[in-house]
């Protein structure tokens, strides 16, 4: 029943490896967002999308790519993961007003 789901929920990766985080929403929203959350920084926007086929850079896009193959799905891609990308990542969807968040993915890069 959850409207925004993320997978995997936990991920351990090695430095230099490729990581793909996936997000699915059933809210039928056009807009989707990827954030990372770190202690002392709150939520910071990495990439967002206005609809299938579109991706836009957020406030901290370096080291990340995004892909929006459909209305429902939005992926965050780390081509060459680094330990500084260890964080909790949240996906959200929302068109006007509030955004609705998924449960998060905890990523550890060793």
């Amino acid at each position, binding site marked *: 029943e959850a409207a925004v789901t993320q997978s995997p929920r936990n991920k351990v990766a090695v430095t230099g490896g490729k990581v793909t985080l996936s997000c699915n929403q059933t809210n039928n929203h056009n*807009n989707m967002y990827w954030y990372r959350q770190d202690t002392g920084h*709150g*939520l910071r*926007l990495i990439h967002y999308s206005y609809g299938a086929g579109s991706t836009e850079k957020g406030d901290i896009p370096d080291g990340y790519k995004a892909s929006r193959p459909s209305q429902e799905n939005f992926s965050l891609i780390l081509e060459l993961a680094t330990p500084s990308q260890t964080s909790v990542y949240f996906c959200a969807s929302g068109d006007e*007003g509030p955004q609705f*968040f*998924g449960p*998060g993915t905890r990523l550890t890069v060793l």
Partner: protein
Amino acid sequence: QQQVRQSPQSLTVWEGETAILNCSYENSAFDYFPWYQQFPGEGPALLISILSVSNKKEDGRFTIFFNKREKKLSLHIADSQPGDSATYFCAASALPGTGSNRLTFGKGTKFSLIP
């Protein structure tokens, strides 16, 4: 630069007290202010929100007070309960329906009750 600031970083009160969480912003284009509640291990969840045309919004024990001239708002939690212990985020964006709902978040206030 940080456009949305929250204070205090952490707040502890007795059960039954009223807690006040503060938020201020810099961008005059911000007109929509949602507050999110986040429990450990979960994503943020919308708690209550206000538009800049209002100076007060109530929802049960939660009330937002908004001062547009001073660019400040506060979240009041009345009759604090153990289940209110969470991190609260203030966020801001342009008016809904104006083309963008990119949210700018504060760093959060960690709220807990004295056991």
